[in-house]
């Protein structure tokens, strides 16, 4: 039974996002709500892109068309969600100031706007990852593995790793995008859209025969690391202090 492959790949794709959720989100109901709300916005964008795909019959066979418009819709809804959060922010602020019993975590969410951006980005990522991976996972639980029809045996792992990469990218894009909007740095916004477009189109390489898994994966992960570092810096992270995370360095 490849139930094992099924569980293994599930953990590869959603292990880190799950850990992020447990460690950073789950304890605060407000963060959970924001995560859910952003996931809902992503879903609406998916609905619109599929409606467009369905309506424009002649282009239905062209995957690249669907990809481009899907990316545009996702970014549009990221923008809408940003507007919503901006409106909500003031209200939340008042609410929490009056309510002395509010949890400290909720307070940081309101005070640290990067945190809000991170939560909404993760919401986008988790739901997007779920939708891209769930079909593959559903078919994996049977007795067979891929390969009979000439597909690479790496297909499952590549799918899982790609999903993971997208979840993380969405998280980072969330931080960069929101920061760009907040501080009117439109270049940041443009970079996010461009990067999203680029990485999505890269994934089309996996449709090639034979698929260029290695090339597309390396590019995607390089992008992810670049975006990660950028988001880290934007959020006030200090690269120099990273070694302090290591227990031995700390002890010194």
């Amino acid at each position, binding site marked *: 039974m490849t139930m094992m492959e099924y569980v*293994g790949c599930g953990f590869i794709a959603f292990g880190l996002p799950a850990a992020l959720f447990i460690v950073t989100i789950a304890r605060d109901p407000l963060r959970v709500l924001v995560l859910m709300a952003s996931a809902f916005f992503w879903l609406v964008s998916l609905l619109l892109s599929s409606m467009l795909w369905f309506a424009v019959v002649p282009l239905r066979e062209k995957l690249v068309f669907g990809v481009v418009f899907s990316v545009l819709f996702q970014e549009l809804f990221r923008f809408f969600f940003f507007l919503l959060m901006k409106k909500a922010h003031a209200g939340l602020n008042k609410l929490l100031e009056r309510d002395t019993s509010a949890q400290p975590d909720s307070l940081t969410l309101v005070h640290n706007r990067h945190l809000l951006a991170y939560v909404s980005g993760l919401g986008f990522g988790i739901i997007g990852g779920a939708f891209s991976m769930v079909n593959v996972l559903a078919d994996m639980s049977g007795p067979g593995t891929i390969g009979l029809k000439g597909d690479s045996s790496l297909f499952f792992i590549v799918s899982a790793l790609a999903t993971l990469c997208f979840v993380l990218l969405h998280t980072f894009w969330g931080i960069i995008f929101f920061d760009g909007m907040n501080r009117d740095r439109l270049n940041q916004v443009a970079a996010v859209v461009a990067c999203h477009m680029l990485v999505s189109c890269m994934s089309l390489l996996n449709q090639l025969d034979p698929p260029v898994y290695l090339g597309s994966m390396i590019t995607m992960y390089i992008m992810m690391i670049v975006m990660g570092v950028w988001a880290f810096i934007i959020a006030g992270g200090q690269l120099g202090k990273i070694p302090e995370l290591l227990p031995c360095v700390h002890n010194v």
Partner: protein
Amino acid sequence: MFTVGGDRVKERIYQDVKAYSPCIRLLNGTHQIGCNSKRGGNVGTVHMVESQADVDWLVQHGPHAPYIPLLKYSTFTRDVINILTRSGKVNGILLQVVNDTEPPVHMSPDQACPNVGSEMYKNDGNLSNCQRVSWNKQGSGLMFEDLDIPVVLLHNESDVEFIIDQCYNKYNKPSASGEARSYPLCAMQLKVAMDAARDSPTCIRRSAMITNLNPQHYCDPLGDFNVYSFLHLPKVKDDLKPDSVIVAAARMDAFSFFLPSMTNSPFHNVPGADSVVTGLVTLLAVAEAIGKVKHKITKSDKPIMFTFFNGESFDYIGSSRMVYEMQRKNFPSERDPYFLEHPTKGWTESKDDPHPISLEHLYAMVELSQVGLNNRTWLHSDVISARKPAVKAVVDDMIKTLKKAAALSGVEVDIAPTGQPLPPASQQTFLKEKSLPGLLLADHSSSYTNKYYNSHLDVADQLGPEGTLSPHLTHLATVVAQLLYKMSTGKEDTNITADESSVSGLLHCFLKTAQCDMFNRTLNGEQRLSTLSKLPYSLYVSVSYVGRKNPLSVLVHNLLAYFLGDHMTNVTSASDCKAMNKKGDDKQSHPYTFKWMQGAWNNKTMKQESFCVRTIANYSTARSPAFDMEEYSWSSQKYSTWTESAWAADAMQVRIFLMPSKEREIAILCGGIGFFVISTFCLFVIRRKFDTIFDSSSE
């Protein structure tokens, strides 16, 4: 590139085998037989078994158990199957019949002594259990084994090629030195999940239990309908004498190891060419020949009843039901579907009702068995009833008449060796209850000539060229028709002849395609020929439930009406003909049925010569009395107790795929879990040092 694949991942993992014929599970009063898989299907590594060496390799070395061996005819023997199943390393069996240049010398899944459970000699120490003659000597009895693994026949060329080239040769074929290949291996999943288990009484009891609002049933009794017709229907007002009715019989059903005909699978799995069709066609030709001279046979002559029994391969279902009804004085029965379909034809309690026929009315029986594989025909009769001088005299007389007619027609007939019991035949059911003079015509003197008795290989090809078969069967039909005429009227008529074009036409219908001229003639014009099957109909009796009739029974019924019915020349339209059925009580129409038939094509008028036929051809239930009796002892073997297991709509599936190695699966699983654990740990560490790393002043 950049076009939507649209296919689900499933389609890239699995290759479905489209055309296959599975073996299914049947049950009787005490046992279950046949095949079954787990609910989700049985999975095993594919291994081609073409020789004994392959069998040994699989059983002794084969490290990747469980296996699903792919057999050819040469290895599909009971011995090999027993070795494989007993090794415990086999999870299912495939038989491929494509590109097999050597069809087996013999192959019969039936027992060496067919229908042994319901034979008439059961209580005779010297004759029981085929001691004298092993009729179906080559019979493997595989059909009656409880295999409990799925066994599937593959007959589609591209399916088999895929399995051999893309699956076995590419991934599984051991190296020249006999070294097994390493993972990934090509595997298959065979799903033939049967609902019933143990035996018929169990599954019938379980089906009758109402556990929720959606009652489930687990098995159905085998059965269908017998078809019979008199030349002239004896009515109540006629004085039907004891020992007067002559029964001319043949059976309509066979079986094979692979029973269900899947609609998407163009494979004729129960052809019964010699087992059934030769006798069936010959008797129909006899009916036609007798029908032409029926004006010469009057009501004072002995009535002839043409009977086609159904379900005979499964312990004489049809004949035993008829005998049961005769014993209850319920034959013909008002409840038979013919009368149910035409309510006005039901009993009017008048003197025009059909005369009930009981065993005492029967005079003699002439039965046609397998008759196609030999130019010589043997006459078999029962040894026990021949001990009665009266019976022996009639039999001797029948043989004398038949031999005389045969000599005139150039048919070689012989008497089966003396002292030899009667081969398995519907007659046996009657003989169990009454000493009856009877003859059985067959193409074998002792053991069957037919090497493929009741198997899917009993096909038209083994009967030889049609050019010699049709004349042979025609002559035989002529001989039998003359015999019946003599028995009925006491007079000889050498002008009675069967029609060779009808015989070859009927053979075409039953062996080549059901979309044929002879069947077309008997359709009423509303039903199109194209609605009939392109392949010949399967001869498997299948299951009995209300409202269902085998298409073959309907067609045989039509043919009997066509050959024996009265043409109503004064009725010229289909609607008028139909309307005749509504006139209930007048003497002309009770209890007949009127059928409109398209008739034969006339080359001169370029039209079909349609006509209205008045017929007494009828159906009688061929469902074992065991299922309709209040208290039946299931282990008594008095009546057939066969049922077919039910199965769900998604119970059958055959698919091919790759199986990853255990190491790889474990590596992926551990990798995934490890990654999750490590990332969770790291995140806890980062959260604790959050303020150190992130400069909150940037806010």
